[in-house]
């Protein structure tokens, strides 16, 4: 008889967690279950409650209601240190009067570790983060990237159960941000420590995460893999938040054309998938991602308004009966403003949302 190994509880679990500051409700009914070793990102615009959620997991904020569990244990009443989490802050929060070595070793000092052991651990972490040559410098004498690595080193040095990242790259320039993103992803692959990451940058979230929780007005709108979030957004909000250039959303009404469902957008009628999801007269919103607009084929007539080459791709903004539409083409497009083109959109590529609820149909 083979025995089934017992399933481990999630590394981080939030059950109907809510947070209010006075009369302002910042988080409502947040439910999340993050498995051990996962890299999960809380993604959303400023003020959506993502940092507050992270702070509640860290123990830096108390939740107003709901349960926070780490490895199956309720931790609502525990202090940050008792939760065994490490955190990297948006502004690094390095102690300005301490050297790099002292910054990294501070947490070990607070735990009463012996000096020799602290020194050994700090040296090892500094070597792995290429900080060995700056150990005696103060934070003000470091570059932004080095400061960020010190902040990561401070989190790494005590080998926590959980890493929390609060927009750690938002103060870095674009090139360094991409580099640090790759470093953090590699670090996670190497160490496999459960990580909860907060960002408002959807590209960052897509590139780094195993799963993403998209937050809006204090709620989790969708929790899924980057592919699920991008290809099958649960709501109109998620669809519009993810993707660059943004998805085009156009209101329309479902009709029956030759016995098949279709949607009227301005003067145009576009066929919808005939899988029984739609009923005539239904008010919907059609979402079309730029890469799903194929130029040079189809019966959608449009004129070119703007061409924006960005290197490997060109974004072409089109005007047509139904409004405006963006198409993404490979390489440098030779199209000229005012030029007439024909475009095609496959019914299967269209994302259809209920106009009233915003839910994907």
């Amino acid at each position, binding site marked *: 008889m083979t025995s089934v190994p017992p399933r481990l509880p999630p590394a981080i679990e939030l059950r109907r967690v809510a947070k209010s500051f006075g009369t302002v409700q910042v988080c409502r009914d947040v439910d999340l279950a993050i498995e051990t070793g996962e890299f999960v990102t809380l993604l959303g615009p400023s003020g959506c409650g993502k940092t507050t959620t992270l702070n509640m997991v860290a*123990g830096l904020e108390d939740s107003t209601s709901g349960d926070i569990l780490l490895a199956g244990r309720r931790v609502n009443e525990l202090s940050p*240190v008792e939760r065994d*989490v490490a955190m990297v802050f948006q502004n690094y929060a390095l*102690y300005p009067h301490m050297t790099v070595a002292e910054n990294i070793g*501070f947490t070990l000092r607070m735990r009463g570790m012996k000096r020799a052991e602290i020194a050994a651990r700090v040296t090892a972490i500094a070597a792995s983060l290429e900080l060995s040559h700056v150990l005696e410098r103060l934070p003000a004498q470091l570059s932004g990237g080095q400061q960020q690595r010190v902040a990561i080193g401070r989190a790494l040095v005590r080998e926590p159960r959980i890493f929390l990242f609060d927009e750690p790259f938002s103060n870095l320039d674009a090139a360094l941000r991409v580099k640090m993103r790759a470093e953090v992803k590699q670090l996670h692959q190497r160490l496999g420590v459960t990580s909860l990451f907060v960002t408002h940058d959807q590209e960052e979230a897509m590139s780094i995460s195993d799963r993403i929780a998209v937050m809006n007005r204090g709620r989790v709108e969708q929790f899924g893999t980057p592919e699920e979030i991008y290809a099958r957004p649960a709501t109109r909000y998620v669809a519009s938040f993810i993707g660059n250039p943004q998805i085009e959303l156009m209101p329309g009404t479902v009709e029956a054309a030759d016995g098949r469902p279709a949607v009227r957008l301005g003067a145009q009628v576009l066929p919808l998938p005939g899988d029984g999801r739609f009923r005539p007269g239904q008010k919907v919103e059609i979402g079309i991602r730029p890469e799903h607009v194929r130029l040079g084929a189809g019966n959608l007539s449009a004129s070119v308004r703007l061409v924006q080459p960005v290197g490997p791709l060109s974004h072409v903004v089109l005007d047509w009966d139904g409004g405006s539409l963006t198409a993404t083409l490979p390489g440098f497009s030779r199209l000229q403003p005012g030029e007439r083109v024909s475009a095609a959109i496959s019914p299967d590529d269209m994302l259809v949302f209920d106009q009233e609820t915003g839910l994907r149909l």
Partner: protein
Amino acid sequence: MSYALYRRGGPGLRLVTIVGLVLFVVWSAAPVVWLILSSLLQQKALIARPPDLSPANLTLDNFVTVVASAAALGRGILNSLIVALFSTAVALALGAPAAYALARLSVPRANAIAFLVLATQMLPSIAIAIPLFLVISRIGLIDNVFSLGVVYLSFNLPIVIWILRGFFLGIPAGLEKAAAIDGAGVLRTFWHIVLPISIPPLGAAAVFAFVEAWNEFFFALILTRQSAQTVPLVIAAFAGQYQTVFGQMMAAALISVVPVIVLAVVFRDWIVRGFADGMMKG
């Protein structure tokens, strides 16, 4: 007027600025220059009308006399040092944690308490002089340096709390959060993180409190007799009933300001940074 405006302005504006600055320097420096000059002049030349400032009248006799009769001045300086150091040290030791609590911890009605602390400074000295004298004489501590130190502490503590609270309000919250994650509680955060980064405002508050205590005259006059007399009283004693020995008085005054000047020069950067940080928020 900003430096940029000064640079952009024409010659007229520059001239007005320079003249204004020169007048300000003269206004500020004149008493010090007069103090130095009069400490170096013989009594006869000093009280002549106008004072006879010829080099022949310059002498170090006043200093020699003051230093030779050093017992009174020496005791005054020692008393002032004890009183100023005691009230400064205790004001910092009590004021820093109090200011931190009022600035950063969830103390109910922290702002109201902070204003109450400041309100204690709004009473004129004369209003509390008699009750204070009665209390201190009842407990038998008239002419005692430590009772004078405690009185000065009651003036210095609110100021220290206000200077430091202004600085603590500006400390980024991330530092405290990072310390909490690193395993430091409130006390260890205060000791290991907050205090070391607060050295400039602590220095500024210390200098302020020290100078206040060093220069104080009124309460020293009513609460001391002989043995606990501080420097300002010793200097005032040079003004007798029948004769005031101005030169010796000025020499003693000059000697007494040396510690304050040394303090100000040594801690100049801290004072400027400390007050700038402390006064901008509050």
